[in-house]
């Protein structure tokens, strides 16, 4: 076959773009969620998963930390927290 051809569809999950996050990451509190799905609708990475309310979460392997989900959440149930903050607190 001629040229560079991507033969398998849907393979980009090999790129773990989560390493791009520098400042903050979203934290899904899962307390006041009403299941409006706006976070999944606006996520440019399509990395927020969940079907029922209070059960949405983010795949940090791919999240680039843009903050769109925290910005659009009508219940402010998603917070942008400092990267590595939780790990530091544990130590």
């Amino acid at each position, binding site marked *: 076959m001629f040229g560079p051809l991507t033969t398998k569809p*849907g*393979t980009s999950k090999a790129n773990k*773009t989560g390493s791009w996050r520098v400042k903050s990451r979203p934290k899904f509190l899962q307390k006041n969620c009403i299941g409006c799905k706006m976070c999944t609708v606006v996520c*440019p990475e399509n990395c927020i998963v969940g079907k029922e309310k209070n059960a949405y979460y983010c795949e940090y392997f791919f999240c680039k930390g843009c*903050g*769109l989900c925290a*910005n659009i959440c009508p219940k402010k149930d998603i917070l942008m927290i400092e990267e590595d903050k939780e790990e530091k607190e544990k130590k």
Partner: protein
Amino acid sequence: MDNKPLFIAGHTACAGCGQSLAARLVIEAAGANTIVANNTGCLEVFSTAFPESAWNVPFIHSLFENCAAVASGVEAALKFLGKKDTTNVIAQGGDGGTADIGLQALSGMWERGHDILYVCYDNEAYMNTGIQRSGLTPFATNTTTSPIAEKSFGNPRPKKPMPEIANAHGIPYVATASAGYPQDIQRKVKKAISIKGPKYIQIHVPCPLGWRHESALTIDVAKLAVETGLYPLIEYENGKLTARQIQPKPVEEYLKTQGRFKHILNNPEAIKQVQEVADRNIQKYGLRLEKSA
């Protein structure tokens, strides 16, 4: 709709990219029985970095100028095979590949009447190569090829009226949408693919890097563009105009959110000229929300 995501994570768009968000909404609304032809641009570069692809639908990358022609060929082949009724064809590209470089192929596609939905992701400059101005760059924008200096305050020319050019071809459906209104994008795409013939949708997609705003503000900036009247959401169905009504806000609210307009914030003359652009839109499309009696 099936559960298999059609546009998956792992693509290499910038954080907060409006285009990747809009591209996913479009392909999800169109469904899995879709063939996508894509001209060169940010979208093709970040979603299909060799050897991976973020798409779960057949995807063809053409040259910068001939995406509409490639999609025309795909559509003709599907027609010959008798599969056109079950398969959608989407051609898509950025604003440069649509309004400047790809316009001749696109015009040909409209004129020949192919049953294709053309989606233009309008981020208002050639963002992939480093923010050069395009035909769809708005007035007074600071780009690398329309820089600010003593006698220049950015791009001197207004935006090319692509929806009107499309409508002048007499095609059945023309619409503009915005990343700030995700449900509106999906409604328009679903409506478009239910119509036979050439269709054109232009989606306003903020680019945090090129427009110089915070990545978390992508949706807000896109909404403000609509609310100020600088990016009217309109639909032409067989030439009949319907527009989303707004209560216009002053254009400063939109301009001050972005670094690319920072230089004109202290220049009342330039702001007045931008406001005139918005006022013309409001008058032309009848955007002002009339108070119901």
